[in-house]
């Protein structure tokens, strides 16, 4: 907060100091929850936004009631561990129709590749999948999770990153009894005997 304003960089600098231009807490809550991938608890919100938990606990139900009162298509709900945006119940039939129309029953090549990486490298983080495939895996992981082929199976003890693995449903769909029935990878990699050719032409 005592940092001098970075005059040189236009618009891209993170002005993380809670200064005078801090948006109202209600707006910050809306912003964070709009992009949160899972329900977020009050304690986490309080820490992340640097705001008192009591204040947040008061604001969230207020926001939620406001959406109902205004007849919005979305709702803010307290579910399990925290708060999350959902679609309004009365809109569900239309949303469902929309979701079904946009979803292909077949997996894309990107989804298949990611599934392969998860199957053989599990437990694996998004970061590792992205490193193997060369592109961000976020969207594909979401698809595979929605399709119940992949699920969160823990956290990296060091980085805290979510680790993914395949589901029983995946095994069922692949006709396997267990992960040990996945074909071994080694024979598909270039043999070590080929290495000599490469080293000594």
């Amino acid at each position, binding site marked *: 907060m005592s940092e001098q304003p970075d005059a*040189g*960089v*236009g*618009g*891209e600098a993170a002005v993380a100091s809670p200064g005078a231009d801090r948006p109202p807490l209600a707006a910050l809550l809306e*912003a964070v929850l*709009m*992009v*949160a*991938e*899972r329900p977020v608890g009050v304690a986490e919100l309080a820490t992340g936004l640097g705001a008192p938990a009591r204040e947040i606990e008061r604001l969230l139900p207020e926001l939620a009631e406001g959406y109902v009162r205004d007849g919005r298509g979305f709702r803010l709900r307290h579910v399990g561990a925290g708060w999350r*945006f*959902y*679609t309004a119940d009365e809109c*569900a039939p239309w*949303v*469902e129709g929309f*979701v*079904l129309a946009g*979803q292909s*029953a*077949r*997996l894309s090549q990107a989804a*298949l*590749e990611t*599934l*392969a*990486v998860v*199957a*053989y*490298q599990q437990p694996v983080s998004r970061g590792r999948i992205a490193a*193997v*495939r*060369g592109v961000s895996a*976020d*969207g594909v992981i*979401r698809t595979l*999770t*929605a*399709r*119940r*082929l992949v699920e969160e199976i823990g956290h990296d003890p060091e980085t805290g990153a979510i680790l993914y693995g395949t589901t029983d449903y995946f095994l069922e*769909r*692949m*006709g*396997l009894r267990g992960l040990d*029935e*996945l*074909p*071994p*990878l080694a024979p*598909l*990699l*270039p043999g070590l005997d080929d290495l000599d050719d490469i080293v000594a032409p």
Partner: protein
Amino acid sequence: MTRARADAAGAEPATPTARGGRTEPFVVELANFTGPFDLLLSLIAKHRLDVTEVALSQVTDEFVAHIRRLGDRFDLGQATEFLVIAATLLDLKAARLLPGALSDDESEDLALLEARDLLFARLLQYRAYKEASALFAGLMALEARHVPRAVPLEPRYAAALPEVQIGIGPTELAALAAKLREPPLPPLVATDHVHLPRISVREHMLAIILLLRELGAADFRTLCAGCQQTIEVVARFLALLELFREGRISFDQEIPLGELTVRWIAVDPAADGDLLSIGRGLYDEDPADEPREAAS
């Protein structure tokens, strides 16, 4: 960052954002100009400074010194950019300084002017895209402040999805995983766009001379007998033209479109022993070796 440098950089609006302040800007100090290299370019481009009055060798020396000074912070991108621009400037300056090869008539001047403008256009175009890239970076940074909503599907909709078709079996899945496990190939710098003179016309001139001295006379077909590729045949042909120009051979053709006979014509013995001087400075030789005489 010193105040003077900040001011100098400020004089050229697009540059500081273009490089994002990552690299120390290259500042030129010449008799008639002091400031950032980009500004120098800008002035030449806007014709406020004559490229013939810029000591490019000094600019190059300073850039080498600049790179040495940077040491570990050496920026390959900056060096590459300098090479491209310096080469263009050199082209430009050469075109401005050299007199026309044949005559100084107006069409020659016009051609020269066009060549010059072409170089200008290329330089300006590159600079325009560079500035556009700075705008792109700015737009992307601005857009990054808006985070799009991309969240997992609500359970009720996920449950409504039809059963997914994986489409492949365990073997194909393993093949995919194996393919992805292979280390990606190291990035290669493609060189196929660089023109490599694989054929030396001078070499072919020597080959023809040796053949003709043995045979006395031969037709083109015979002279090309050993050639494997079209380009070699072309080189033999060019070599013949060159030898004819030098007065070492003669062409005989009995009837129109008939067989062409190439004959070695006697020259003084001194030139004979001086075969290595043949074709010097032509096509493929280092011009610095023996400067080409101005055709006068």
